[in-house]
């Protein structure tokens, strides 16, 4: 069968009958008929969330940062480095890994919208780091040199890379066994779907767990009225990540419950043990990360034990949401319930103008007009 990618496949198709992935490539970006309307709702929500880091005033953070003790500077900067890594991956990988294989228009556009919002996060980190240190390059350069960060990068990117490599071979040559750089590689659709499922589960882990250690530290600083500009930006990022997590949970649950490609049900079962280990391994890595953060001292309100309990707690919740057995069934209590007030988007300021005028509206059109309304104008 022909599997070559085309940016505009000219074979007419019925997008209502295509699976989410590995059907015919999307041709017309149409949303009049939708197989899974949830993805358009996610797109609309994400667009309504639009924000820019420059809108947030972070000028006080510089003074706050200078006054922090060294071990707290380490906690703050290390988390920013780690988040920079996560969003570097997320700003490009869904596009590169998933767009060549997606086969319904609303999901294709969700992937693009999702990935774009991650680029806003990356730009935020530069905005924050530029403000607090004199040489941002020192911070960014360390991301690929710091052993503790690199270990995580490997675990996150490997699932994307495995899927991308197999897709490239499949789309160039189709199913078969090929010699690539001296090793024999077998490529078939079943194996590709398996790699896709594992890749999506790894993304789910990233959005569900990996961000939250940094979030907790940022909000713990802000609880002490320190680095509050940073916390405002992190809240906007957390709001986006909660939506992305919902998107990924939907994709995984549509697959494993047989509401999309029927073959994915068996694949989800085949992958179950590996998905369980993926979550568990990520939780252990995040605990190790918490230990690295607090190696020279804890901060008020947080230490490595509390963070470890929190990691187990959210891992427990998130595994249940995608139908997996919990790796930490005893972790049923949130050790830092105050974090929810920060993660809550109820009190996220959505437009910078709101500080002055609470009734400021963006993009509003009044249709209630009469010709009299223009009577004061003279031509």
């Amino acid at each position, binding site marked *: 069968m022909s599997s070559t990618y085309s940016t505009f496949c000219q074979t007419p198709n019925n997008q209502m009958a295509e699976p989410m992935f590995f059907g015919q490539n999307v041709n017309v970006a149409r949303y009049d008929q939708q197989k899974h309307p*949830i993805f358009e*709702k*996610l797109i609309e*929500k994400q667009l309504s969330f639009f924000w820019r880091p420059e809108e947030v005033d972070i000028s006080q953070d510089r003074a706050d940062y200078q006054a922090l003790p060294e071990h707290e500077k380490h906690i703050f900067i290390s988390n920013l480095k780690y988040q920079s890594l996560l969003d570097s991956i997320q700003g490009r990988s869904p596009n590169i890994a998933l767009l060549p294989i997606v086969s319904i228009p609303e999901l294709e556009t969700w992937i693009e919208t999702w990935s774009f919002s991650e680029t806003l996060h990356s730009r935020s980190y530069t905005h924050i780091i530029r403000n607090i240190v004199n040489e941002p390059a020192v911070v960014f350069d360390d991301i690929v040199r710091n052993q503790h960060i690199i270990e995580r990068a490997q675990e996150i990117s490997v699932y994307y890379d495995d899927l991308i490599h197999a897709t490239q071979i499949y789309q160039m040559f189709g199913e078969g066994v090929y010699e690539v750089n001296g090793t024999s590689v077998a490529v078939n659709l079943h194996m590709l779907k398996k790699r896709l499922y594992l890749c999506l589960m790894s993304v789910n882990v990233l959005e569900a767990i990996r961000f939250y250690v940094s979030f907790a530290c940022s909000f713990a600083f802000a609880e002490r009225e320190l680095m509050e500009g940073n916390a405002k930006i992190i809240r906007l990022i957390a*709001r986006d990540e*909660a*939506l992305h*997590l*919902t998107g990924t*949970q*939907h994709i995984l*649950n549509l697959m494993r419950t047989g509401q999309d490609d029927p073959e994915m049900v068996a694949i989800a079962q085949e992958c179950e043990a590996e998905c369980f280990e993926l979550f568990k391994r990520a939780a252990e890595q995040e605990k190790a990360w918490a230990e690295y953060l607090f190696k020279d001292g804890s901060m008020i309100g947080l230490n490595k034990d509390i963070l470890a309990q929190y990691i187990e707690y959210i891992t427990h*919740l998130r595994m249940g*949401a995608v*139908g997996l057995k919990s790796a930490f069934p005893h972790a049923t*209590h*949130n050790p830092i319930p105050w974090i*929810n007030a920060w*993660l*809550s*988007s*109820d009190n996220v300021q959505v437009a910078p103008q709101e500080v002055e005028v609470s009734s400021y509206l963006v993009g509003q059109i009044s249709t209630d007009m009469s010709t009299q309304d223009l009577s004061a104008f003279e031509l």
Partner: protein
Amino acid sequence: MTMIFTADGVFELNADETLLEGLERTGHEIEYQCRSGYCGACRVKIWVGSVDYPEPPLAFTAADEILPCCCRVRESIKIDCHKAITIDRIQNDLFAPDLLQDLD
């Protein structure tokens, strides 16, 4: 009257509050984040009864799960939610009421 049964008790849901607010008011341990149906943090299992939604929420829910932040409760229901463990409750557990009564 809409009664909410949980794993740890029962309460009446006020007309002007969401189920999430009712659970918080009565000291239940309930996770939350967006409070508007897109994050799924508050999802709980429903054991008896059913709820509906003014608008279908964005977050994923399994067939036996509901979102207390945005659902509409029209009948008495029973859900899988526990009371938070507070200092008061720990102390009450340690000192049974009749233990102190005997001292009077």
